Structures are given as structure tokens and as C-alpha cells.
């Protein structure tokens, strides 16, 4: 369960104060699939970073899995990121000098998992995303879709409870994007909470719930099946209505 209560976050950008999140209050149930939409600069990624404990809110209370994480120190937040949250990024963020297997092993390095166990679990995750034949390849030897699947394997190798995906198909062709979405939905179906930030209505409509953010505020909540309402709200926001 994710419970955000009155979360605000501002940044000082070149002397100008930007309110990235303003009084966001939201609950996301365990195993839910939520899509976050919004125009550029609306605070989508900031919300994802706060939920993923990469960023701290200036105000408000944040409970993750029944625990107040708003007041944790850096080391405790690292542990939360390692064991409770998994990240998938638009540009994959794989370490270029490491093979697919070694990239998947990375979170386990910090968890102190022994090498044999690391290897087995990494291979198992890579098999699960259909990359058993590409385990020894470096990122520059993989296609975009394969890279994102490696990132997906890495994000889930320590069995997190929440998977955060920031434009996971934004840098992929249609077929690869569809494959990645199917994998994400499979993981969600097995109980993983999935939160996806996207511009793409085709991606958002697959979610159980859609949130639309504008100027740091949640301006729309609705089921994925009513994507047209979300898109209209989004268009209105982009047109300044």
C-alpha cells in the first residue's frame, strides 16, 4: 500500500522556485496498476521519484508498505530502494561495460548476495524476460527492446513490492514496446504494484487507474477504460484551460 498525504516538493531552478508537487494526496493499493499522465513539467517524474524514495518531499507524509518513509535517513532510504522498489527508465540506464547478467546482478551486489546465488537469480530473471540467449552480451550488443527487458529483469531481481516505470516504452519501437508492456502486466498480475509514467494513451489505457497531473496537482483520477476522459483533461491542461 502506498499512501501519500499532502505531499509537496519544490525546486530552486536558477533562482526561480518551481512547485513540482503541490499537496498531493493519493492512495495506491498493493498490486494495483496505475498510469500517471501529464504535460511536460507537470510533476509526473517527481512524483515517481518521491514514491521510489529517490527524492524527499518538502512537506507531507508518505507511507510505503505500512511504514512512514518521509523521515528516513539516506542509508535507510537506500535499503527501501533496494528491497521494496524497482525502477525501469526510459533510457534503460544499463552499465555499458557490464554484460546483461552482470547488470541484473548489480542490486544483489549491494545486498551482499553470494556470487553463485547472484548468478542463478540473474539467469532466472533473464530467462523470465526471454533473454536466456543474450546473458553474456553487453548493452551495445542488444536492441532497445532487449535492453529494456534487461532493465526489467534487474528491477525485479530482488522481488520488490513496487515497480516504477518512467516512460518504459518511450524509446522503443511498437513491437518491442508491446513486448515490454506485456512483461510489465505479467509481473503486475503476479501481485507486483505497477506505476507507469507515460505520455502514451495506449500505454495508460492498460492501467487499472489513471492519474493526470498538472502543475504538480492531481487534476484527474479515473479508470483506464475511460482513457478518453483523461486525454481530454490532459489536452485541456496543455492548452492552458
Amino acid at each position, binding site marked *: 500500500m502506498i499512501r501519500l498525504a499532502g505531499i509537496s516538493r519544490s525546486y530552486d531552478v536558477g533562482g526561480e522556485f518551481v512547485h513540482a508537487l503541490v499537496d498531493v494526496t493519493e492512495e495506491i493499493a498493493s498490486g494495483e496498476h496505475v498510469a500517471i499522465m501529464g504535460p511536460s513539467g507537470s510533476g509526473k517524474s517527481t512524483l515517481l521519484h518521491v514514491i521510489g524514495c*529517490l527524492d524527499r518531499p518538502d512537506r507531507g507524509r508518505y507511507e510505503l508498505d505500512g511504514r512512514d518513509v518521509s523521515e528516513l535517513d539516506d*542509508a535507510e532510504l*537506500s535499503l527501501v530502494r*533496494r528491497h521494496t522498489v524497482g525502477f525501469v*527508465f526510459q533510457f534503460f*540506464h544499463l552499465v555499458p*561495460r557490464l554484460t546483461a547478467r552482470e547488470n541484473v546482478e548489480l542490486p544483489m551486489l*549491494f545486498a551482499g548476495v553470494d556470487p553463485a546465488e547472484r548468478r542463478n537469480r540473474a539467469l532466472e530473471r533473464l530467462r523470465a524476460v526471454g533473454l536466456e540467449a543474450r546473458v553474456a552480451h553487453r548493452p551495445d550488443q542488444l536492441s532497445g527492446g532487449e535492453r529494456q527487458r534487461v532493465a526489467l529483469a534487474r528491477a525485479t531481481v530482488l522481488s520488490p513490492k513496487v515497480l516504477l516505470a518512467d516512460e518504459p516504452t518511450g524509446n522503443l519501437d511498437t513491437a518491442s514496446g508491446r513486448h515490454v508492456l506485456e512483461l510489465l502486466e505479467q509481473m503486475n498480475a503476479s501481485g507486483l504494484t505497477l506505476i507507469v509514467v507515460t505520455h502514451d494513451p495506449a500505454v495508460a489505457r492498460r492501467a487499472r487507474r489513471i492519474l493526470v497531473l498538472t502543475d504538480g496537482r492531481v487534476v484527474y483520477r479515473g479508470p483506464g477504460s475511460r482513457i478518453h476522459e483523461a486525454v481530454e483533461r490532459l489536452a485541456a491542461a496543455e492548452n492552458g484551460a
Partner: protein
Amino acid sequence: MRTLDVLGFAGRALRGHRLRTALSLLGVAIGVAAVVTLTALGEGARRYVLGQFAAVGTNMVVVLPGRTETTGAMPGFGGVPQDLTLEDAVAVSRGVPEVDKVAPMVVGTETVAFGERRRQVALFGATHEALEVRRLAVAQGRFLPPLPWDRGAPVAVLGARLARELFPARASVGQVVRVGDWRMRVIGVLEPRGQQLGIDMDDVVVVPVATAMKMLNRSGLFRLVLQARSHADLERAKTAVLRLLTERHGEEDVTVITQDAVVSAFSSILGALTMALSGIAAVSLAVAGVGIMNVMLVSVSERTREVGLLKALGAERRHILAAFLAEAILISSAGGLLGVGLGWAAVLLLVAIYPALPASPPLWAVAAAFSLSVGVGAVFGVLPARRATRLDPVSALAGR
């Protein structure tokens, strides 16, 4: 995160920038090699000088005419109140029981000729006792006979090279050579000995001391070399000789020094020189450390997104610190090992070129140079590593 995992992660990062890593490593290697080589040179010089002193005899006391306080000049040079005479030598031999042997000496230069062959060499006026006191050895014939010291004789013992060059095709013993205006029979040839305290003992002619004094028109000795009965007798012998000669001359106009004091002084000076050389070389290690810091700062800057990713994956500050610090320490350690190898090779090369120099790096210097190189990596790696740990994960992921 396990230590081996930290090292493995750091090692892979370094392999990703082979040239940059190699150049940083080379900087450390040159610094360590300089420390090892220069320390070996200093130590070699110290051993060489001490070896020279050991080669000329043990338990030695040297009596020089004159005192620095009275003449204002170095002993043996400048104005001398009274000569050191053969009678003084006899008196010391008879009157100081701590002294086992006395070798009066006169030194000059003279031309030695045989037929058309002639050569300017050091003339060494000595007595039978010099053979033992100066640790000389005879290769052919015999050394000077045990004559009364004030009695000359037209006999000469030649240095090994001098004998070879004057008599390339025949035995020299029994031949008559001309030393200055004197005709002298060669009675022996010394074993090759090389340089001893600045005198090339292979290029000398040794004649009885009384004869040498006449040839060189000297009334006094160059010095008296005494051999004490034991090491424990050295200081007592020194005091007794000084007292006796002061009584004979009516004033303290000689300088008496023990071999120990000279050896100790040289050892201290050369030891200090070695340390100074090592210190100068160590400065280059500090420069190499700055190089490592620069490379690591560039690395942190280039890998900002990676640091952000590692934080997103749950890496704690200590993990990031360890990973970057390990890179710096790996560079410096590998550089240190390479430097020890290079330094050792340089020393072997030096010894091959100058076999007389007993240069070898002391183990403490090798250990210190290597430890210093590792320390340099650790110290100069801290700043970049701390910079990496302080990166904000969100900004780092965005490459800012």
C-alpha cells in the same frame, strides 16, 4: 557489498578506460621506481664506502701530522708544526701495548720505467707491516722484507696493472726498473685490488719507507697507520698514542682518528643522503597522486548517471565510496608493483654497468615505496569518491 565484489566492480571500471588507467598507473610506477632506484644507489654508495674502509684493514688508528685547531687546515695539509717521523713510529710501536702493528707511510708520485716503457704512478713508501695492516696480498714474488724502518733498500713491489704494462710478455719479478732516478729490483707483484680510498692500488710502486723519503726528499711521514690488538683496544690505543706523541713533540700537534669514527661519519652522511634522495623521489609519488585524483574526478564526472543508477538500485554511500576508492587504490597498487619491478630492473642494469657499486634496494625502502603508493591512491582517491557519494540521485540520473 563484499570486498571481492568491490574490487571486481572497480577493476571492470578501470578496464573500461585502459589508456587513462595505464597512464595514471605509469605515473605511480615512475615515482616508486625512482624511490627504489635512488635508495638503492644511496645504499650502494654507503656499502661501497664502508667496503673500502673494511678492505684497507680493521681496528685501525690513523695518525696524521698537524691539527686543524693549530693550523686552520685539514690534517695532513698546510703548515705542520713538527714532522711525524720514523722515530715517532718506533716509539709508538714500542711504547703503546694496545697497538699490535705500526705501518709508517709516505705517498708521492714518481715515474717508473723499464726500457722504453714508462708510466707515472703513485709511489707508496711502506714497511713489511703494511702487508697486513693494509690487507694487501702478493700475487708473485714477495712483499717488502722486514728491514729496520730507517734502512732503505733498492727493491720495489709493483701493482698488478703496472707490472702487466711494463712487462707484457715476461715475468716482472727479478727485473730491474727505474723509479725516478733510482734503479730498483722488482721483488713482487700485488694482487689486483682496484681503487682503495682514492688510490688505485693496481697502479702503484711500493718501496721501503726510508727509500721513499729519500726519493721524495721528505723528512716526515704522510701518516702512521696502526692496528690495535682488538676492537676493544681502539679508544685506549688512540688516547695512548696521542699522549705519547704529545710528550715527544712537546705539544699536541697530531690528529689521531679511529677507523670506527670515520666509518661511522661516512655511514651517517651517506645514510642521510639516501634518505634525502628517497624523499625527493617520493615527491614524484605525490605528483602521481594528484594525477590519480584528476583521473578519478573525470571518471566521477563521466559516470554521473551510473552513480545515480547505483543509488536507485539501493547502493548506500559507503558502497559508492568503496567502489571509487577501490579504483584509485587499484591504480596506485598496480603502479606500485610495476614501479618496484621497474626500480629493481634499473638497479640490476646499474650493477651490470658498474659492477663495483654494490647497489641493491633495501627491503624497507621497497616496502615503504609500495606502501606509500597504496597510501597515495587512498588519500588522493578520497576526494573524488566523496564527490560521487554526495551526488543527488535524481540529478545524477539526469546526468547533472
